[in-house]
Structures are given as C-alpha cells and as structure tokens.
C-alpha cells in the first residue's frame, strides 16, 4: 500500500461533505468500478456560487481523500473559480499523492466539473431544477 501524506490520511479518516443532495442543481459522475474508482458529485448553486457540494465515492483511500478535498475546495466558490480546480491543485492541497494514485485525483476535479456542466446545461434548457 502506498504511503499517504498526513493530509490524505486526515481527509480519508474524516471525509467532509459525504452524501447526496436532494434535488441537486447538477450531478457529475465519473469513473467506473473496473479501474477501481467511481465518484458522483452533487451541487447546489445559488447566485452563481456553489452553495453546497456533496459526493459519494467508491474507491481507494486516495479517491476518498480527493473527493473530500475537492468538495472542501469548491464549497462557496463561484462556478468560474470552482472550474479552475485541477487534479494538480487538489494533489497539492493534499500535500501530494503517490504517483500511481494521481489518476484518482483527476477524477475528483473532473466529477465536480461535470456537475457544473450539468448545472449549466440544465440552466440553458431553462429547466433550472428538475
């Protein structure tokens, strides 16, 4: 097992924002259980800001820590700011990820991004909330 940073362990042991949002404004799902990791992000948007972010994750310690960190980084940010979260910035905030686990962190930012895209396309369609 790879040796994780203290920050990764802390987020893994006490993940923030686990769960689902009822009637979310956007949902983003990435990964598949074959490669080992799967993440679903739920967002609530108010005045162009991420009022709430929650996630569910199937995966290793890194995947869970990454999800937790992404949710923490994204909460309260404007959509534009949140979309600037990258796998690299997540890994940096986590004080590094083992090399072979870096792909996990790609998923976190990607899942959040997908949730925001989902929100934007819902808004475009004029539905807002479904």
């Amino acid at each position, binding site marked *: 097992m790879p040796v994780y940073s203290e920050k990764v362990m802390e987020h893994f042991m006490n993940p923030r924002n686990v769960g689902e949002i009822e009637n979310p404004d956007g949902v983003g799902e990435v990964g598949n259980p074959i490669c*080992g*990791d799967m993440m679903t992000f739920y967002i609530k948007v108010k005045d162009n800001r991420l009022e709430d972010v929650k996630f569910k994750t199937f995966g290793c310690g890194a995947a869970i820590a990454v999800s937790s960190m992404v949710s923490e980084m994204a909460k309260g940010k404007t959509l534009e700011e949140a979309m600037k979260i990258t796998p690299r910035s997540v890994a940096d905030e986590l004080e590094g990820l083992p090399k072979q686990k870096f792909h996990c962190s790609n998923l976190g930012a990607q899942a959040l991004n997908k949730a925001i895209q989902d929100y934007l396309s819902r808004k475009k369609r004029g539905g807002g909330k479904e």
Partner: protein
Amino acid sequence: MRKVYIDNAATTPLLAEVREAMTPYLGDVFGNPSSLHDWGNTAREAVEASRAQVAQLIGASADEIIFTGSGTESNNFAIKGLGLVQQAKGKHVVVSAIEHFSVLHSARTLEKWGFELSLVPVDKNGVVDPEDVRRSLRKDTVLVSIMHANGEVGTIEPIKEIGKVTKERGIVFHTDAVATAGTIPVDVQELGVDALSLAGNQFYGPQGVGALWLRKGVRIVPLLDGGVQEGGRRAGTENVPAIVGLGKAAELAKANMTARMEHLTRLRDRLLTELPAKIDHVVVTGHRQNRLPGNASFCVEFIEGESMLMLLDSQGVAVTSGSACTSRALKASHVLIAMGIPHELAQGSLLFSFGIHNTPEDIDYALEVLPPIVDRLRQMSPLYAKFIKASKGGS
C-alpha cells in the same frame, strides 16, 4: 489499541525457536561454507543439516534440495531453468491462469525468448481441471507448472491427478508449493511432481530464503552463474543464518503440522461462517473444502478493498486485498478475474490469512470492527446507493 495480524499469507512471524537456532550464525559462526577450514566446515555442516530438515519436510532426499533467496527465486529458477534446458526438445510451456506472478511473469519471459505459453483456466472456485491440462499439452510441451495451492483464495489444486497426466506424456512438472509447504502435508513422491518451490517466510522461518526441490536426474539451467555452491546450480555464498532458520522452521512444521492445521482450520471455518452472517452481500471466494487451513477470503460488495484495509489498519487489524487500488499495477487480482468474479466485486476483495499465533479473540475483534467499517464505506459508495435505489424501486 489491540493489534491483530491476520496477514500470514504475506509473511509469517519468525518463531522464537527459529530465531534462537539462527543466532549463532549471525555472530561467532560466520564461516563461508565453501571454505576448507574449521570455520568453513562448521558453516557447511549447518547448511547440510538444514538441507536434510527441508528434505524431510517434503519427503525428498537432501541432495535434491537447492537453497534460494525466496519463493520467487525458486519459481523463476524452475520456470526459466527447466524451460531453457529443454529448448532443443520443445518450446511450449503450460501454467495455470492463477499462478503467482513469479511463475506467470517468468513464463512470459520465456515467451519473449521464443517459447509459446498456454494458460490453463480455472473454474469459479479456482480449481484447475486436470483434463484441461491434458488438452493444453502438445508434442513440443516441455514444462507444466501448476501451483499446489493459491494463497489468495486458498484453493488447493489436484496436483496428484495433474501429475499423472504429465507423467503419461513424460513432461517435466513443477509445482509452486510456497503456500502449502510447511502448512499442509507435502510429499513430492505422492504428488508426482519433478520440481517444487517453497519459502521460509510462509511457515515461521526467516524472510529471504527459499528452496527448489529438483527430482534426481532432472536437468536445469542456473539463473546465477559463479561458483559451485548448491552443486553448481545456484552460485553465490549461502545465506547461512537464513538457511539454518529455514531448516529449523521445516523441522518444527513437520513435528507440529497436525495440531497447527486443526487450530487454523477452526479459526478459518469460524470466520468463513460468521463474517457473511454478520455482513450482508459478502461472497466467500475459493473452494469451500479443498482449502488452505488458514485462508478465509471474501469479496465485500459495493466497496473497495484498500479503503477497507486502511480503516481496519486504523483499528489495529492487518489483512490484505486483491483490489486494483492495492496493487501497484492498478489491476484487480488476476486470480479473482480468472475465477470469473466481476471487476467491481473483485475490488472488494478481503483476505484473512491466519497463523498459529492467532486466537479466537482475534476473530471476535475483527468481527467487531469490520461491520461498522463496511457500513461506513457503503454509506459513501455510489454503487451501494444505486443498489438500494434499485431494490426499493424495483420488484
């Protein structure tokens, strides 16, 4: 915090008696067994005594034992050495799909060197069918290697029956007995094999030492060239303390085998019954009866193995998993996949391998801490959420 080690398939703890036997050879008795003086003679005698002990463990004669640096080395030596030495005769080798990587990857190396490789499948319990071995044989098959038991799922293979098939055809037959030698009875004559690998750290001996048994008259190409140690088949100054430890561990394993097996079987059967009774959606992997006495392997649905391992570790419980995340290659266990277990289920693999030091209280503790861990990870799992929705919404 209570500390419980249930990962004996990875390595067993060193027995105090074994450590004591080794101690002089880490101190005053330091001679090189090849030296022709008193220091050398003393070391050589120790190595030869150990050779006899290891031979007795597996019903072999001492001059058929070659000491190596690990089970992995023994397997590399067998596959490459027995393949290469016969290449004028044929270049086809047969191994099972669930072999340890030290066999599988050695066979792949032979492929790079111009050999052809056939992988024999296993059934859902991880059992090799001797008839499948027979069907895979060709005119140019020179080597068959099937493991005696799989340490990951515990399944014991029908080596005797496979040996009959290879014997009929006069094909060299190797078995990786790393998971069995020193744990269950292993007799090379009864098994009908020509070569057999074993390792010290699987039966309370030291790490970094193994042996390859090679039937008299079977030829092999050495992996290591150099001096004439081990009859010229494995050059390099012997690891005397480790070899002495391996011998002592072999002696103790033979003397205490029945009692050890009974102890391990009791622990194993209890966990195999009680864990699935305590946690929903848990599958036992491997053969239920023909199984290593200390092996209790499972797949826990909807969650991933590494996160289970880490949370168990935080509670002092050491186990292992065959999930993709726990492997450096990020691939789910080839053993579970070969058994037809779907990838997402294989991700939830959890292996408890008991040792002689484990107690019923260890199981009590594991059964106390595991259910909340599984529950916690399932609450986090999108797969579990989907399953719950589907079962509520569906029929």
